[in-house]
């Protein structure tokens, strides 16, 4: 028995003795598992691969916050036999995430990652989502979301050479917007501290306003549609933050809605139709929202009217072809009038020259007569 397993076993025996009973399935809580698996040098019996669980990361994971314990996922641990070096059976079966996340699993089975298994490449949930540190990504920037998932394996910079503004798309558009094309989309606005030049956590916004997740929307949205913040109410919210010394702008990103269908990632049908997004009537303009994630991992979605995108506070947002949501529509009108004005001016001048041609002819003839 190696030294670490021995020490762990001793601790387990001590725990069992203190409880006055043999450790059983029902009695094992996360703490018991972490007594051994909290050791960063813990490896499998054969020495291959770490079985360490970072207690801190696990503590803040959505699963722990929501009361999901080790044995809820590792269901085949069974009763612990503390007389053994490894007090549970090995190897354990792979965790079946689909046991709880049924819809996500069924959508995944239709996607390209599942299809890769035909080539002998097994991509399990944790390859994208991680093991014990799964957290909500809802209010994370696109790049951070992708770093935790797609970019672990994929290097989009190597491809997409056809795509104009490649880096801009990678920064502001989630991969699945194009690669899970059946998904509904949402334009997500993130608070940006203009003074400190950094993104603002929702807690700071709520603290400045003196409200909480539930009180945020009613504080500003008081019209006939309380579930949606209008453009005026949005401006009031910005002014309220300004008055409290928080000068904010907003960064807009295009995301897939949080929906199990996002797991049906495709390759061959990845969208290459620019006009689907770069059009004034693109459907996602109707879905604009802010997401706040609370300390328990709960996501609070606040719906916004699409006219919010015309606010000066969202001045980093511009899509060619998005004229109907842009405050610059008067610019188009003014520009078209300018061009038409130039055309009309030219036509009038030309008509004036044509109309006055006889006058010039008479004048010319008179001069010639005088010269003769």
């Amino acid at each position, binding site marked *: 028995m190696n030294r670490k397993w021995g020490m762990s076993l001793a601790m387990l025996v001590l725990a069992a003795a203190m409880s006055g009973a043999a450790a059983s399935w029902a009695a094992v809580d996360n703490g018991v598992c972490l007594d051994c698996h909290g050791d960063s040098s813990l490896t499998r019996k054969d020495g291959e691969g770490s079985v360490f669980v970072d207690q801190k990361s696990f503590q803040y994971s959505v699963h722990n916050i929501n009361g999901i314990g080790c044995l809820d996922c590792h269901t085949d641990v069974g009763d612990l036999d503390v007389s053994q070096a490894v007090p549970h059976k090995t190897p354990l079966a792979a965790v079946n995430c689909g046991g709880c996340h049924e819809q996500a699993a069924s959508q995944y089975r239709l996607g390209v990652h599942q299809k890769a298994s035909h080539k002998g490449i097994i991509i399990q949930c944790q390859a994208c989502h991680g093991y014990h540190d799964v957290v909500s990504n809802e209010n994370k920037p696109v790049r951070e979301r992708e770093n935790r998932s797609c970019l672990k394996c994929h290097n989009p910079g190597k491809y997409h050479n056809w795509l104009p503004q490649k880096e801009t798309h990678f920064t502001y558009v989630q991969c699945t917007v194009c690669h899970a094309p059946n998904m509904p989309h949402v334009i997500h606005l993130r608070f940006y501290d203009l003074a400190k030049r950094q993104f603002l956590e929702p807690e700071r916004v709520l603290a400045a306003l003196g409200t909480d997740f539930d009180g945020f929307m009613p504080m500003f949205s008081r019209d006939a549609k309380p579930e949606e913040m209008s453009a005026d109410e949005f401006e009031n919210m910005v002014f309220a933050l300004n008055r409290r010394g928080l000068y904010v702008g907003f960064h807009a990103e295009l995301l897939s809605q949080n929906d199990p269908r996002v797991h049906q990632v495709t390759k061959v049908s990845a969208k290459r139709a620019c006009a689907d997004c770069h059009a004034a009537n693109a459907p996602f303009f109707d879905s604009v929202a802010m997401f706040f994630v609370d300390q328990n991992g709960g996501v609070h979605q606040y719906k916004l009217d699409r006219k919010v995108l015309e606010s000066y506070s969202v001045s980093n947002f511009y899509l060619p*072809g998005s*004229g109907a949501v842009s405050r610059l529509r008067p610019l188009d009108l003014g520009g078209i009038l300018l061009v038409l004005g130039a055309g009309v001016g030219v036509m009038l001048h030309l008509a004036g*020259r044509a109309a006055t*041609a006889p006058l010039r002819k008479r004048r010319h003839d008179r001069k010639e007569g005088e010269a003769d």
Partner: protein
Amino acid sequence: MEVMNAIVEAGLAGEEGASVAGLTRKLRKPVVAAANKMVYIHHAPIRVWHWVNAAAFVVLLLTGVQIRFAGRLNLFSLEEAIHLHNYVGFMVISNYFLWLLYNLGSGQIRLYLPNPRGMARKIKEQVVYYTYGIFRGDPNPHQVTPEDKFNVMQQQTYAIIMFALIPLQMATGLFLWEIKRFENYINFMGGVRIVNLLHVSLFFFFAAFLIGHIYLATLGHTPLAHIKAMFTGYEEE
């Protein structure tokens, strides 16, 4: 020159002179006085620059319209329009710096710098000519020479365009080409929408300017005289 204008007017006038159709027919039949002296005005590098720029501007305007009104127009696919706009945009930027280098090197840059002496009077004369004198058959108050090829209004317009508006259009175009790469400059200017506002405003200005420019180019002693000169380099004195 006055004699020349009189001959042109004689060509434009006549029985049909008062109708637009008649005028158009007359415009197609320029009257040229063989006795007039030809003066070399437009140097070859400037002519090449001008026509490359002209073709590029047309492409930029067409693709720009497609990009701006994506989903409403179908001149090109948006993808094609953006790529073409980018390539041609870089061509215009290169062309601009060749123009600048040539004009600085040859000293011709001075042609674009208005002389403040008598400027107000010259502007007044030129405005009166275009709004009144041209209809009466008065001679153009400005005589084209190699040392003074632009009238005072052309000089000021071209100076503003070449030293302010084109550089601004190039800079904003460059920033919009790769928003992420230039995000610090874009943020300094107030965000991508402000940069885009400038770029699109100038796009409309240049579209309007092009209409006026082409029309004014037909106001030589024959409708094609200035345009021909931009190919041959020679204007009639």
